[in-house]
């Protein structure tokens, strides 16, 4: 966005509303961007210099398993640096936002699912107090009468799922929002999680971005007011809701993070309609593609009597399928192809229906003196003459063939009504438990633009116990990996090349768990067993590695200037079991259709309970401590001939321990004795994480 000098002056007067890092004047911001770019160039060149040498000249083949593992880990980290560098290359603080037109219509959706009433009430009151004209709705997936009463008492609207949803997949929060979209008509919508208390200016500060008719959404940071000093669980994500989102924004790839975002209804609806059309096309084609096998299997499973009854129908169905595939191939619309197919399937099934009804009638006729039977017989005769009733009995799910489950599924799939879903259009994507990321990607792929506005305009509640914190992190990670597997940004059509990489970068960062294991285990293996992954810790090694590490860290410091990033850095290593579990469970879910699963632990807060959550980290820490003691002892006793390697590995192990120590602090953390806020946060987040509540990943 370009600004006139006048606007710029005004904006400088307001700059204290913005977050640190964005407050500098234009010259300051430009200088910062160029410093970042300089460091990016230096860090990537030094990294390449190191890595090329590692590949070409340093692999210690004598211990090839750890040597190759470490090389793979370092390659992963270098790619991570490159992706981070690319993100920051167009770091874009937006400064003051443009003012709204004034006549925009806005619906505010507060999504809830069994959160404590008083917690939601606070959010509702704050939402009602937002200065820009709007309507406020409570979207209650818990369907509680108390919540309804609260919404009514406060003067907010109250929305629950319509009847269409019963018996269908609810799709958690995505479904909740989609349901409400069809019951409201604002031009824009602000989505708030139940605990995210908005500031009165939230709309005034964000709606102006929609002057650009291509802007689909404006995301603002998620910030938690109940995080104690030191942030034991690493709840705040200031680096993500700051420089990283600002960097992605520079590439028109800011993420939608589920809450504290304003969306344009038209963009969401368009995404839903496109999703319907494309999804339908895929669904019908796939159903037709596997139909041959389905019908063959159905045929094989028939008993001889059944075969006599069904075979002509199956034959006819097979022919109908061949014709449908041909018509689709010829580019005929799905509506027409599926219509013809359904009519033919119905006709084919009717023969069986008529046969069955006639047989029943005849049997009844053989039973003498059965009065109710006579009435039934008459009704059956009538039925045989009733065109519409016969059609209904032969159609799709009521077709006699539908007794064979796979055939029933086939008949349902070759249609345009998406009978498998409550509503045919899902504007908010439902392919993942992180519906927000999938939705943003879909919008970007359709050519919509996005904005990240770096100003805290809502304050939420973070988990106050380790179990919930881990649960929440696991969900985000699982969801991200799900999206990567189901709708890979590198392959998704419509995305610009760097947009692909911006999504991929976040997904890539969640694969770090496997790499962390290598970094944690390597020094232990050396100190105990002498497994040396590189040929030697020579001066050449240090001359190449140290400048790379220094440049990398400098880049990180400049990017994160004024932001507490240390806890985040620790957790990206310390949560390695969680990242691994997220990846493996998401793969199992997408590829093998398994359930995603939860962190299962006692809900009561006991001293020992927290430590049970971090057993893998404790084992690794014990091994590292033992390795350090063993290494130091050998140095002290003069038993080591390679003093430098031991020193390096001891330092490495100590670094690992410092990083892992965050998790000990978290396990030991005792929240201040049951504050009201804490009880609310607990209830809210336990309910919400299990329902798929979202925010950003951690970096």
């Amino acid at each position, binding site marked *: 966005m370009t600004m006139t000098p006048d606007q710029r002056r005004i904006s400088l007067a307001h700059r204290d509303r913005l977050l640190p890092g964005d407050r500098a004047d234009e010259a300051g911001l430009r200088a910062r961007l160029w410093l970042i770019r300089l460091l990016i160039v230096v860090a990537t060149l030094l990294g390449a210099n190191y890595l090329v040498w590692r590949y070409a000249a340093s692999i210690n083949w004598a211990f090839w398993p750890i040597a190759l593992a470490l090389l793979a880990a370092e390659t992963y980290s270098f790619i991570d640096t490159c992706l981070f560098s690319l993100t920051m290359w167009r770091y874009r603080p937006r400064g003051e936002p443009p003012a709204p037109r004034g006549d925009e219509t806005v619906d505010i959706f507060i999504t809830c699912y069994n959160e404590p009433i008083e917690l939601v009430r606070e959010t509702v009151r704050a939402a009602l107090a937002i200065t820009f004209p709007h309507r406020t709705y409570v979207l209650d997936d818990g369907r509680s009468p108390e919540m309804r009463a609260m919404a009514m008492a406060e003067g907010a609207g109250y929305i629950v799922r319509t009847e269409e949803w019963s018996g269908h997949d609810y799709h958690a929060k995505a479904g909740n929002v989609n349901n409400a979209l*069809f*019951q409201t*008509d604002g*031009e824009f919508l602000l989505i708030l999680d139940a605990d995210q208390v908005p500031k009165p200016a939230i709309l005034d500060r964000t709606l102006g971005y929609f002057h650009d008719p291509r802007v689909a959404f404006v995301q603002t940071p998620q910030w938690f007011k109940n995080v104690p000093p030191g942030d034991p669980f690493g709840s705040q994500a200031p680096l993500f809701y700051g420089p990283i989102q600002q960097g992605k924004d520079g590439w028109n790839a800011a993420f939608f993070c589920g809450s504290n975002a304003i969306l344009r*209804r*038209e963009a969401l*609806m*368009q995404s*839903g*309609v*496109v999703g*319907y*059309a*494309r999804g*339908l*096309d895929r669904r019908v084609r796939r159903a037709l593609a596997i139909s041959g096998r389905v019908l063959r299997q159905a045929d094989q499973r028939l008993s001889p009597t059944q075969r006599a009854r069904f075979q002509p129908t199956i034959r006819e169905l097979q022919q109908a399928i061949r014709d449908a595939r041909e018509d689709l191939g010829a580019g*005929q*619309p*799905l*509506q*027409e192809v599926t*219509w013809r197919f359904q009519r033919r399937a119905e006709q084919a099934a009717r023969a069986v229906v008529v046969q069955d009804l006639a047989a029943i009638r005849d049997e009844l006729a053989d039973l003498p003196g059965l009065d109710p039977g006579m009435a039934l017989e008459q009704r059956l005769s009538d039925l045989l003459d009733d065109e519409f009733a016969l*059609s*209904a009995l032969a*159609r799709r799910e009521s077709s006699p063939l539908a007794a064979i489950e796979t055939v029933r599924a086939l008949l349902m799939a070759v*249609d*345009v*009504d*998406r*009978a498998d879903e409550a*509503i*045919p*259009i899902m504007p908010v994507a439902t392919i993942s438990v992180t519906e927000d990321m999938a939705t943003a990607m879909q919008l970007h792929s359709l050519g919509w633009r996005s904005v990240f506005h770096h100003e805290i305009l809502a304050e939420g509640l973070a988990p106050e116990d380790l179990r919930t914190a881990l649960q929440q992190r696991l969900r985000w990670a699982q969801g991200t990996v799900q999206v990567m597997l189901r709708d890979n940004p590198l392959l998704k059509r419509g995305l610009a090349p760097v947009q692909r990489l911006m999504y991929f970068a976040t997904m890539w960062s969640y694969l770090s768990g496997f790499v962390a294991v290598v970094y944690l285990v390597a020094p232990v293996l050396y100190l105990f067993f002498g497994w040396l992954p590189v040929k030697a810790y020579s001066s050449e090694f240090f001359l190449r590695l140290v400048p790379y590490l220094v440049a990398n860290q400098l880049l990180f410091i400049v990017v994160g200037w004024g932001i507490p990033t240390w806890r985040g850095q620790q957790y990206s290593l310390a949560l390695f079991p969680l990242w691994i579990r997220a990846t493996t469970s998401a793969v199992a879910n997408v590829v093998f259709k398994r359930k995603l699963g939860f962190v299962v632990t006692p809900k009561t807060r006991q001293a020992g309970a927290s430590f049970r959550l971090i057993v893998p980290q404790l084992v690794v820490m014990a091994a590292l401590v033992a390795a350090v003691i063993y290494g130091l002892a050998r140095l002290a006793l003069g038993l080591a001939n390679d003093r430098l390697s031991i020193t390096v590995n001891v330092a490495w192990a100590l670094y690992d321990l410092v990083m892992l120590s965050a998790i000990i602090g978290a396990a030991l953390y005792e929240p201040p004795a049951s504050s009201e806020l804490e009880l609310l946060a607990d209830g809210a987040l336990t309910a919400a994480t299990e329902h798929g509540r979202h925010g950003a990943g951690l970096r």
Partner: protein
Amino acid sequence: MQATIESQQDGHAVVRLAGRLDFLSSGEARQRFVEAVASGQRALVVDLGEVLFIDSSGLGALIGGLKAARQAGGDLRIARAGEQARSVLSLTSLDRVFRMYDTVDDALAAF
């Protein structure tokens, strides 16, 4: 937006829409489709000839109507889509789903 429903024999009906079929009127349009289907008019032809503008919410209403009609064993056909409607239908890939008929009679005849 105005909507008039013209019932014909055998559960056929023509729904004539006029004005803007957008986020403000789409809920009502969808409601009309669903009601028509519920009252036994399963074969709907939606005449878009007098529709000035249609947005994605409007398309959503058509899909909602299509679903209701199909589930009752009928169908919802689109006739006389103008330039703007055709362009949004193609932008959203909905032209892969709907057959667009040039006249209401063509659409009725195709049932």
